[in-house]
């Protein structure tokens, strides 16, 4: 289904050769590769994956936050990368604690991350250091709470 067979995603080995510390865990599911990256290595790994000539993950498709409440670390962010030149896909995952979740912004690497990170901030309350304009994007500016968190009721607080 995907261009890379299960377990054959070349990006994983490249990333490991570059810095062993950057790969905490590799998950294979349904032909999709997920690399769990420690928070402090995220921006470095992003820059590497983007600029490495044999990979060229220049296209950031999406950033998807998931709230695993009440499990700790509570939040995870999934970065869906695409290499248009090599027709490769890769998912980077960063895990964050429930108390004051914050991590460095990747908007300096992929400009498109700007709105995705604003959305993650708006709906999950995750903060991004170094983001140029971290404001709510979908909800009203004076909204209280973060609606897509698991401890936020579906009907809202009324």
């Amino acid at each position: 289904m995907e261009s890379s067979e299960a377990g054959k995603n070349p990006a994983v080995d490249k990333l490991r050769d570059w810095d062993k510390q950057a790969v905490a865990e590799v998950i294979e599911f349904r032909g999709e590769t997920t690399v769990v990256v420690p928070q402090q290595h995220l921006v470095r790994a992003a820059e590497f994956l983007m600029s490495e000539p044999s990979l060229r993950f220049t296209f950031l498709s999406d950033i998807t936050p998931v709230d695993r409440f009440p499990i700790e670390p509570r939040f995870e962010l999934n970065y869906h990368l695409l290499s248009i030149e090599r027709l490769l896909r890769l998912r980077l995952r960063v895990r964050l604690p429930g108390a004051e979740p914050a991590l460095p912004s990747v908007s300096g690497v992929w400009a498109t991350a700007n709105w995705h990170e604003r959305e993650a901030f708006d709906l999950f309350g995750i903060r991004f250091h170094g983001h140029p304009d971290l404001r709510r994007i979908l909800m009203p500016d004076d909204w209280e709470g973060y609606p897509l968190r698991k401890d936020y009721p579906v009907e809202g607080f009324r």
Partner: protein
Amino acid sequence: MTTKTTVIETPAGPAQPMILNMGPQHPSTHGVLRVVLELDGEIVLTARPDIGYLHTGIEKSCESKTYSQCITLTDRIDYLAPLSNNLGFCLAAERLIGIEIPKRAQYIRVLLTELTRVSSHLVWLGTHAIDLGAMSVFLYSFREREEIMKIYEYVSGQRMMTSYFRIGGLALEPPPDWLDRVRRVVDAMPGHIDEYETLLTHNRIWMARTKGVGYLSPEGAIAMGVSGPLLRASGLAYDVRRAFPYSSYEEFDFNVPTQTAGDCYARYQVRVAEIRESLKIIRQAMDKIEPTGPFRAEVPGIIPPSREEMKTSIEGLIYHFKIFTEGFAPPPGEVYQCIESPRGELGVFIASDGSPKPFRVKFRTPSFVNLQSLPMLCEGRLIADVVACIGTTDIVLGEVDR
């Protein structure tokens, strides 16, 4: 050809930029989009899109519904291409469960999503032309779109919120003579497209309003995550149908039209060429679809059994009851499935925790991402060009805000 812009000189004085709110109620923003413009006379200094007026919390709602119930919500994301959204969600769920559906159902899905692309592009063409002052194209393109809506209604019973694709196949067997109706539309369409082209392609006003307007460089497009016709009009032939084929697209012969100019006119050319390519795919699909055969996979406990089986066998009845009351539970894990919607890469991310309801659903909607590039398109240009730039990005606000 580049357009000459004449700037009316304003009397000397302390230059103060003016802030102008375009929208949220503005006919040319195609929904409820607000763009905050900072103006120096008629020149746009900065443009900041403000979104969220149509936020309905679809992703949150999905978490409290079973997988099958979520399909009805996907129709309402991009209401101009409901079947593309259905397809994205169903493919993601099918990948999560790990099932393959019958070829016949895959071809029918291809045919209907390509019809959706045609109808969505027709709405785009009509509204974009009306924004730029060409009234008559709208009347013609909506006439043809109506014929496609009638096919939706004939096949699924609904004109807009079709929910026709289900996890494992289709909702029901299409009526026996539906392909004749499709053929009638497909045969008439090339002539209609020629008609639109006589109205626009060499029209001097149309060219003046679109050529050189809203330039997007290939590097800029990639950095902003822009996909679909916008990306292809900037010279990059990335199409999910070709790059990561799904639903048997690898069996179809079609071109990926590209242009290198990266302006509104190039995007117009790409979309018109895409309509013709879609018609090509539809013709091939019509030859591939067999008149009879399964329209749904057979997976006991996950895919509902046929009506016949439900009424005659006790297992069928039990499965039917269980599927429609508590749903089915896919294994825990995450999938990201993307398809080429009329607007670009539509990605559906589903995280399952092994329960019958999705733990998290995320729609990577092309309109949301493409809209982010709007300031790139219109900064430094005239206010009138903002209208052209919004039209050319082909956003659907339901999809932007979800």
